[in-house]
């Protein structure tokens, strides 16, 4: 797999140098970027859909007076929105301007779960949000199916499965990451244990995301009633869908930070051209 060729580039430090390997196949690179676009659109249209009823519940039916999470707006006597409030498990927080109440196009504070700058469309329009969401949901599923099929066909799943020895090295690996010491030389030829676990968790999270999304569909629930039981009810499925979505937001944030600090250009070039420069480990040399 590694078509190693010695490249002795000596320009700016940001430009990758070292042993060049072929890290990502075309299929992986294409599915990666399609996935990135899908996740962005799905998150933003998903928040639009959430805004139609910005509250989460447990079980099958909505207990309107006992939400797990709710975003509401408070109004003064004249009906003007004055305050946004987010309630999580009974605890209320003032979130004016961001959650519950935020400024609309005219600058007026108005009732809204998530603010317009993070929803598609930016204005309240559930029907259009659903159109975007389902189109990109199909794209995500088809794209994901191609990616996962490739994992099995080319026997790449093992790239993400950590060994027992690796699992025992997690504390050490966390310590290395905290000191911003990233694997070099031969150790950088494969994913380290934290990368393996993070990417594996994303594959599992996306699977749960799709299944909980499907569980919200009354049509799918008739075809596969076990889905409703699996997630503990339709409203629980909606809540899990929301939590997993934000788990993925967290992953993307960490992912982008790691891309930035572990050699931004090298990482970006490898996800565009497939070629990745391995920095040689000085201790080995």
């Amino acid at each position, binding site marked *: 797999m590694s078509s190693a060729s010695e490249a002795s580039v000596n320009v700016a430090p940001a430009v990758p140098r070292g042993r060049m390997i072929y890290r990502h196949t075309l299929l992986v690179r294409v599915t990666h970027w399609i996935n990135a676009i899908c996740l962005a659109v799905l998150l*933003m249209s998903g928040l639009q*859909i*959430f805004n*139609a*009823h910005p*509250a989460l*519940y447990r079980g*099958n*039916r*909505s207990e*309107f007076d006992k939400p797990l999470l709710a975003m509401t707006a408070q109004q003064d006597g004249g009906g003007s929105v004055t305050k946004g409030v987010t309630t999580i498990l009974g605890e209320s927080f003032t979130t004016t301007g961001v959650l519950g109440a935020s400024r609309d196009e005219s600058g007026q504070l108005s009732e809204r779960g998530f603010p317009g*700058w993070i929803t*598609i*469309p*930016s*204005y309240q*329009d*559930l*029907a*259009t949000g*659903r*159109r*975007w969401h*389902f*189109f990109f*949901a*199909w794209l995500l599923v088809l794209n994901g199916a191609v990616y996962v099929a490739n994992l099995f066909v080319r026997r790449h799943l093992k790239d993400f499965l950590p060994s027992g020895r690796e699992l025992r090295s997690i504390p050490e690996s966390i310590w290395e990451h905290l000191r911003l010491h990233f694997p070099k030389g031969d150790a950088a030829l494969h994913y380290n244990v934290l990368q393996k676990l993070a990417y594996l968790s994303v594959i599992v999270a996306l699977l749960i995301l799709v299944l909980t999304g499907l569980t*919200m*569909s*009354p*049509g*799918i*629930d*008739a*075809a*596969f*009633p076990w889905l*409703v039981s699996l997630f503990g009810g*339709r*409203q629980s499925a*909606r809540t899990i869908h929301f939590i997993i979505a934000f788990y993925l937001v967290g992953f993307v944030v960490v992912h982008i930070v790691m891309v930035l600090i572990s050699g931004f250009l090298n990482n970006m070039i490898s996800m565009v051209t497939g070629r990745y420069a391995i920095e040689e480990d000085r201790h080995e040399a």
Partner: protein
Amino acid sequence: MKREAVLSRRQILARVALGGAALGLAGCDRLSNSTQTRSVLDAAETLTRTVQRALLAPRDALAPEYGPADISPSFKPNGSVDPDDPDYVQARDERFINWKLDIGGLVDRPMQLSLAELGQMPARTQTTRHDCVEGWSCIGKWKGALLGQLLTAAGLKPSAGYIAFYCADTLEQTLDGTGKYYETIDLIDAFHPQTILAYEMNDKPLPVANGAPLRLRVERQLGYKMAKYVMRLEAIESFDKLGRGRGGFWEDRGYEWYAGI
């Protein structure tokens, strides 16, 4: 020198990213309003319907049913909750004694059925979950006449492809009269064993807020398909000529005709 160059590159990158995000957002709004985009996005609805029908149709699968303990203490009414259309107000004030459901269109034997007569028709009782397109769910116990049996009694003509439900309530005031609630379903849903015209909710006559005297239950679809205040139903060939031509009040306002998801 070098540091400045790096900084300015970062600034440029940051500005490009911010500008890109703003453009992207504005772009999404503009795209959302373009008919071309909508027709591309609409492809997903066809795909969803085709796949769900493939999964459902051969099995005639039933929507999950629940027990008495699962019933919502109060079933949230949505849309119209107290129609003020004069004909409806009069019928309601007469406790629907003189009210009759009109069954017509592409049928051999048009019928008019009073509530008492509907009560004599083959019925089904079911405790099911009602999923609103907004995201919430309520569970209620429904009793009503099986729609499939009513249509068989009326003698559906072969050209009939859809059943249209005309409601008493005006949900939006419009000049062209397209603000009256209506819905359409196809024959697969019309003849599904759980599709009923419900006249009872939680063992009591259907309350006005929930659609008295009669509402549709199509248990494998979202709430907006389940027309309330049903006055008349009609077997039709297609729904192109109804309302704004998309098959229902909310469909005319951008929602999917197929509401199985």
